[in-house]
């Protein structure tokens, strides 16, 4: 049987989450009278806190649509996505999916993808620490073994793909200054990671998205290169591999076994 405290809290929460409901019975102000404005303080505090958490996590998304629009969108999100955890740093994981189907945002078709970039940024920001390997590591592995090697990618590493130039848009909106129109309106593949103290965002070259994805999935460098070429014939293995080390995307290299995969 639920305790009376459990019942009181269930009714309190039920009324908090539905502004149409009256103040729960037994919840009073001075003189023992229910007072809607007093109870509404809690509704407001909750909503303000959730909107602020989203504003902190999605600052560029907010800049792209303006404060008023973003706050209305955030309130609409919060109304159907209350937190399940006390960790506000993780609140808003479903924002990109929400923005993608939020009808009033349809005129900004790249908004959901920019939100996805900010989500990746925030996950990279809080990701575990790991020391990346330098490019000199590549030279320490014999070329024949290198191609069969597998890599451990940095725990903060995320890939994104968008039909819009979201990396360039994101970069141009880091502050409130006026921005010029982008010269090339083309899709971008991005790599987001935090190799040291700062989160960095890189635009991937052709085939890079498939290459990094295959490596992160445990494929050898040779197999990852095959996947990359299949995705885009312009893929350049040497450059892509060195770049991945240069941006701090690799924490471990496991030299390949000569016999592995041999028939």
């Amino acid at each position, binding site marked *: 049987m639920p305790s009376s405290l459990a019942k009181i809290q269930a009714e309190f929460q039920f009324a908090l989450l539905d502004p149409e409901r009256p103040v729960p019975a037994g919840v009073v102000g001075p003189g023992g009278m229910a007072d809607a404005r007093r109870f509404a303080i809690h509704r407001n505090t909750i909503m303000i806190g959730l909107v602020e958490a989203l504003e902190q996590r999605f600052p560029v998304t907010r800049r792209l649509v303006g404060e008023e629009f973003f706050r209305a969108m955030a309130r609409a999100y919060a109304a159907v996505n209350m937190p399940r955890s006390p960790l506000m740093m993780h609140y808003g994981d479903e924002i990109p999916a929400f923005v993608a189907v939020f009808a009033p945002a349809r005129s900004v078709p790249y908004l959901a993808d920019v939100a996805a970039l900010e989500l990746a940024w925030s996950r990279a920001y809080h990701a575990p*620490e790991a020391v990346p390997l330098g490019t000199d590591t590549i030279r320490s592995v014999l070329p024949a073994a290198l191609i069969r090697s597998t890599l451990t990618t940095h725990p903060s590493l995320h890939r994104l793909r968008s039909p819009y130039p979201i990396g360039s848009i994101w970069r141009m909106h880091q502050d409130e200054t006026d921005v010029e129109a982008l010269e090339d309106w083309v899709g971008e593949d991005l790599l987001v990671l935090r190799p040291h103290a700062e989160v960095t965002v890189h635009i991937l070259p052709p085939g890079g998205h498939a290459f990094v994805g295959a490596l992160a999935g445990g494929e050898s460098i040779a197999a990852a290169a095959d996947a990359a070429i299949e995705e885009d014939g312009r893929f350049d293995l040497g450059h892509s591999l060195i770049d991945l080390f240069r941006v701090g995307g690799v924490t471990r290299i496991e030299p390949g076994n000569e016999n592995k995969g041999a028939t």
Partner: protein
Amino acid sequence: MPPRAGVGLKPVHYRTILDEGPDVGFFEIHAENYMGAGGPPHRYLEAIRSEYPISLHGVGLSIGSAAPLDRDHLMRLKDLVDRYQPGLFSEHLAWSSHSPVHMNDLLPLPYTEETLLHVARHVDEVQSALRCRVLLENPSTYVTFARSPIPEPDFLAALVRHTGCGLLLDVNNVYVSAINHGYDEFAYIDAIPVEHVGEVHLAGHSPSHDTAGRTLLIDTHGSAVSDNVWSLYAYALRRLGPVPTLIEWDNDVPPWEDLSAEAERAETYLRQARPRHGAEVGDAVVAG
């Protein structure tokens, strides 16, 4: 933990603190902001922890929930206590979660025997998991319950007796609740078992009104400490003696100079406070 003034640690001040090394008694962190796996928050906190005492203030454990405590969250707190060795750990006499939703607000409790036994069980559980004393903070409230027969200071005193926990006396919360419910804030301070108060909080509030047009103060933490709260603090210190005192300023965070000026003002009061008879400096702290 020194009986000095500290301030809430805010990311916008990380660089200033590390570059200038201001003379501040301690920094308080909201535990939930440091529960990520890694990254800049931990890097900055480690650097600041190596120079200053830290107090750990939880805002999300929901000790007053009728439901069982979130064990995962308790373990995350334990990891922080082990890693940063805070001089003080505090949480709220409030609830925030009713499964599965976390409401991200500190909600009021009816003060009954049932609630008392329930909260005491949770405090026991927290203290045994963290192996340190919890300071429970008095809440700021806007509504109360028709059936809430135990006065708040008595409820807090009973929790101290049942669990051996300490108290975090939030003087702004005392003032806000006293105005909101029409009781005497000085009598509230008189009723608090001062020998168990391990820390004081000071913060700003903002005025509003209820449906009946009565003044309603909102605990916003978004402005300087009001003169009425400074007066009540001075009154409390006459009973408490010098106690670690935190300036909380969580919204519309001001430039470092304004925040440290508030801490300096608290230090002025602390320097004038006479030690409570029989008290030893730092006796509220039982860690490890």
